[in-house]
């Protein structure tokens, strides 16, 4: 009979542990709901996500590489110092071919010191050896078919699987929260009718932001489509990005 009692008490203890785990999760949900009432960090209540389809267009011919977008993003979203960027700028310097070589151009030199946040140093080559150079701002590509979402196992447990799965290197593990993070197009701003911080601050209007479901006749997005041949990054991976680029060169991936 002794074993019967021990089994019962063991079962009770087990039930207690399960109940404890469940209570914790219920309590967490409740806490989150209460927090949402008082601190609105995401969308306002009347925001309907199904009525919008946001996208970003980037005109690389306009970008001057000032780095204000990367800096604004870090500040606006409280991104920690260090190698953590929701958006950054890459500089491509394509040298002239070596004299006598049968190449049309040299191997591209790419850099992004501090994500381009404080601009760029002098080019490593004298001007007369440079064939072509340009800047390419990068951010989450807003894939229609996102590999990062596909591999995510559950609420963020900090497994970094999504970081590994993103072909564009736009995700990172936040060293403070230990959760995965990426560009949200400043969700807290766009749901209130504002532009993302990087778009707002760009002095060259290289970043164009819009809503495909609410296009006006003279929308900048519309003009961008009319005036440019557009490209996406790594199209062969089938991710169908919604960030469109104009004026890209073949080496950008």
């Amino acid at each position, binding site marked *: 009979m002794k*074993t019967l009692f021990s089994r019962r008490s063991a079962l009770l203890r087990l039930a207690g542990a399960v109940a404890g*785990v469940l209570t914790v*999760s219920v309590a967490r949900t409740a806490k989150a709901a209460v927090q949402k009432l008082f601190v609105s960090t995401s969308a306002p209540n009347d925001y309907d996500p199904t009525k919008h389809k946001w996208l970003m267009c980037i005109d690389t011919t306009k970008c001057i590489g000032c780095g204000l977008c990367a800096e604004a993003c870090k500040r606006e979203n409280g991104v920690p110092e*260090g*190698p*953590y*960027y929701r958006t*950054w700028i*890459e500089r491509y310097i394509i040298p002239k071919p070596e004299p006598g070589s049968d190449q049309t151009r040299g191997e591209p*030199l*790419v*850099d*992004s*010191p*501090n*994500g381009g946040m404080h601009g*760029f*140093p002098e080019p*490593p080559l004298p001007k007369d050896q440079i064939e072509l150079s340009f800047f390419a701002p*990068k951010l989450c590509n807003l894939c229609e078919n996102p*590999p990062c979402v*596909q*591999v*995510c*196992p*559950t*609420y*963020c*447990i*900090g*497994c*970094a*699987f999504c*970081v*590994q*799965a*993103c*072909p*564009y*290197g*736009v*995700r*990172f*593990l936040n060293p403070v929260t*230990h*959760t995965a993070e990426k560009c949200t197009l400043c969700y807290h701003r766009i749901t209130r009718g504002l532009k993302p911080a990087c778009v707002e601050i760009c002095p060259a209007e290289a970043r164009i932001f819009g809503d495909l479901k609410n296009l006006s006749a003279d929308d900048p997005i519309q003009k961008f489509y009319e005036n440019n041949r557009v490209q996406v990054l790594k199209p*062969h*991976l089938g991710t169908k990005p919604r960030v469109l680029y104009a004026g890209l060169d073949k080496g950008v*991936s």
Partner: protein
Amino acid sequence: MTGEITNIGAFQGYVFPNEANPHPLWSVLIVIYPYITGLVAGAFIMASLVRVFKVQALEPVYRVSMLTALAFLLCAPLPLLCHLGHPERCYEIMMTPHLTSPMAVFGFVYAWYLMAVLLLELWFDYRQDLVKWAKITPGFTGILYRMLTLGVTDLSEQSVALDMKMCRILSVVGIPSAFLLHGYVGFIFGSIKANPWWGNVLMPIMFILSAIVSGIALCVFNYMVLNWIRRKTVDMRCLDTMALFLFYALVVDAAIEGLDYLHRGYAAEEGYSVIQLMIREKLFYTLYFVQIGVGTLLPLLLLGSLQLLRQRVPEAVRRCMIFCGGVMILIGVLAMRWNVVMGGQFFSKSLRGVMSYKMEFTGQEGWLIGAVILCLPFIILTVLVKLFLSEQLQFSEHVSQSSSTT
């Protein structure tokens, strides 16, 4: 050229700013995780050779293999858990799984394999013995045996026959389950199309094959060490048969991995040049020397020559050769896991540069915790062997009887 990025760590070429981190996302622990899981799957398949395929010669190693599988399976989720940013949320993976994620399925595959396959098969296999031992063993151990019978103390012929039947059925179910368990681990890497080193249809197959190889090698190792500790002679028929299967499995594994290597070079797709650079700079020793040399070619030579010259090699030399072959394979497969997991993180997804990392000794993903997790299954196995393979205990002969009747 890469400005301040070069100061953070040793980076060559251009890596995305988010990749310029001094620590890798997945480190030693994620190397150990597929290693341990593979050992489980391999040890189980080794055991099922006895039950399903009736390889009588391997009978002496059946229980060692099953206990090995159990000891390692108990430790399999540990490295995963330790590496998470939020281990306290790990139960979410079972409560709110996102079913398109290979990782979300892990909890279920693991639970299925542990509860429905391994523990059940062990229970059916051991029940008869447990009932007998419970009667003769005093003290805590006796109580433990009695508890483990779960109150089913019927030792009639019918009941024992049912045990054996269930054991076989579970073994048959267990083989695809073992393939699932480790094939899915391979899929975690193989499904990452963003990474040319990982995204590969052959990856699950390579993982399964190398798992079988490493599992058999581990059984060889454990069996020989156990006999050495107990000062008992090794059953040479059993050992030779293990060496035979080890050799065959290694041939198939080496062929598939070679095919993968060949295909990469022949297709030379986008990213091949950065992979070449990465191998040359970061994986030269672990790939060419340890995985291919020590882990594949040398054991192939050792075990292959044994197949040809078995009769002429004295037993002591044979034992030594098989043991060395097994140990080298175990090291080689660990190197293979390292090469897969770390290799995929040594180059940038911009395909323009390679990264170096500072591996920590202590800390959440350090060498120390990795070594501890790698030793833990052996400690658990020691306890299991003391309890269930003790020399003082009599083992029933029902297994060979029942198989000789079928």
